[in-house]
């Protein structure tokens, strides 16, 4: 066996005429936090569903912890934990009963079951609610319980499909704290999908996926370097003079196409003090914009990630209908 926990080669999935995933290839290292970033309908969930054996790939192959997702379904299933995009708890059972159910179907031995349940409930701050029916839980609590459940059988890989979708920012931050904490405690690989840029920043590596293709894959920093340096925007009392000075004295690259006096520099935060010191024209305002993954996506696709949200959602619904009811959330 090599060092990769997840290996994917030319994975394709079609739904009738619609090609949801068009041959993706990537590897995930042991212990890595790997993120799939892309708009809704890009094929993220379809890929995850293939990796966790819920969908059979139309073509290509994938292995998880060395086991083929088609031929060795059970071995794969034993080694993965899942947190789905939509809740998958039985809300008529208590938190404890949900965990018990999971422990039985994943063959967590009796002797360690109680201890592990306690640990995990403690980790997600639900110990005092263990015997309450899940129907009384808030969205964030349910998600936390699902994360605890996904870890109950000590999986090698934890798949998180949009783990924070629909949650408020505070809960979202909590969940990220748990995920980071988890990495420190356990030897676990985390594979997640998201369409939140801020969330993708937490990953060790990101694959940007659009229309079923991976269009870029690297660390968040390297991806951001792709789009160039920081952009500084200034407003002065005499913009024409300032522009001249910037070109001659600072030798910066003025971004002509923008509707402002904007230019690109390497280290924006170090450049600004110098600019204030040395620019003779009185400055009215300065703003610094560092490239985000949004810019990366914009550069690669010509669209903003949220641009086609409505479109993408419709596309995803279409795909998801085959797995879930049409009126599903």
């Amino acid at each position, binding site marked *: 066996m090599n060092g990769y926990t997840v290996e994917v080669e030319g994975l394709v999935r079609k739904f009738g005429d619609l090609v949801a995933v068009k041959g993706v290839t990537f590897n995930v290292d042991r212990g890595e936090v790997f993120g799939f970033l892309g708009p809704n309908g890009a094929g993220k969930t379809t890929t995850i569903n293939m990796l966790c054996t819920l969908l059979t790939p139309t073509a290509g192959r994938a292995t998880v912890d060395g086991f083929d997702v088609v031929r060795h379904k*059970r071995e794969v299933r034993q080694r993965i934990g899942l947190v789905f995009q939509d809740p998958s708890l039985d809300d008529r059972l208590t938190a404890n009963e949900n965990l018990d159910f999971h422990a039985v179907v994943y*063959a967590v031995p009796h002797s360690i079951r109680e201890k592990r349940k306690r640990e995990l409930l403690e980790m997600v701050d639900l110990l005092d609610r263990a015997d309450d029916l899940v129907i009384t839980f808030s969205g964030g609590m349910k998600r936390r319980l699902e994360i605890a459940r996904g870890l109950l059988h000590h999986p090698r890989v934890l798949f998180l499909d949009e783990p924070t979708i629909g949650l408020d920012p505070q809960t979202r931050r909590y969940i990220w704290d748990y995920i980071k904490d988890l990495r420190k405690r356990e030897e676990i690989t985390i594979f997640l999908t998201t369409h939140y840029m801020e969330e993708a920043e937490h990953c060790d590596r990101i694959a940007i996926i659009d229309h079923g293709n991976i269009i870029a894959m690297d660390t968040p920093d390297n991806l951001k370097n792709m789009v160039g340096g920081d952009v500084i925007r200034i407003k002065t009392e005499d913009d024409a003079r300032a522009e001249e000075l910037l070109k001659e004295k600072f030798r910066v690259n003025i971004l002509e196409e923008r509707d402002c006096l904007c230019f690109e520099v390497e280290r924006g935060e170090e450049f600004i003090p110098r600019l204030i010191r040395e620019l003779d024209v009185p400055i009215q305002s300065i703003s610094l914009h560092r490239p985000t993954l949004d810019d990366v996506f914009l550069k690669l696709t010509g669209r903003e990630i949220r641009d086609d949200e409505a479109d993408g959602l419709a596309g995803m619904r279409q795909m998801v209908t085959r797995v879930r009811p049409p009126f599903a959330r």
Partner: protein
Amino acid sequence: MGALEEKAVDLVSGEFTTPARSKSSGLSWAMRGIYIIVLREFRRFWRDRARRIGGFAQPIMYLALLGVGMESAFKVFGGGDVPYIKFMYPGILGLTVLFTSVFSAISIIWDREFGFLKEVLVSPVPRSSVALGKIVGGSITALIQGAIFLVLAFTPWVYGFSLDTLWKSLAVMPLIILMSLSLTSLGVAVAARMTSMEGFPIVMNFLLMPMFFLSGAFFPLQGLPRWMEVLTKIDPLTYGVDALRGIMLRGMNLAAGMPGNLAQFAAWFKDPEILRIGLGKGYPDPSALSTMAQQASLPAQAYPLWLDVLVMAGFGAFLFALALWQFNRAE
């Protein structure tokens, strides 16, 4: 928890390192799945007070309203002193089992809608064990409902409190199990690939209503038009209701097969003296009379018990296979 699970856990200890190991214990994975799904199904049923009360109240309502109403009607139309409630009771028992069994499968659609099905489908337990767990779980709830309803048999309005009623009640249990297993399979087969919660009751009622009305649960299957008679013979539920009624009305003793009043008539007219007086007073011919008596009395059983059981078992095996197949195909 249960002994079954303890055993399963012994077979697979905590660490899963080699694929060979977990492959060899496929059966234990399946047992694990069946066990926990049945347990969950049961828990949910018990926790849902509306289902518990409704499941009990509905058959009582049928029995009280329909039974009394029909019994009065039968008297008006010259059925004589026919104990209609006694006749109808096994039919309502069949109805209870039918609806509880079939509609227990709606939990599959429910689970799909609320996402829980994914948690089950992505777990290492085989799919067939999930379907099997649903079938067994649904059957147990149907059996419980049936058993609750059987308590009513002991009331004086039905069969009365006697040892005889007890034996009969125990004798129908295996039949109820057989019926509920096959009917839950039917529900699972339909629900396995259905994604609409609204659609399931519509489809099921479309299937169940004719099945139920043609089964002879409410009225005797006699003197029907030819086409309808053929339909009643195709309806698998006919055989279930027939067997239930046979046992409840006659017991397991197949020799004591004659309806009470018919036997009485026969004994009566054996005496030539009585026969002569009867004819002289203008009574109809005994052979004609016995035909009339047969038509007026509500028949206990139309088919032999072995045929009933055979048809139910065959039907059950077919639906069971269908349910497993459909569930395996579902995405």
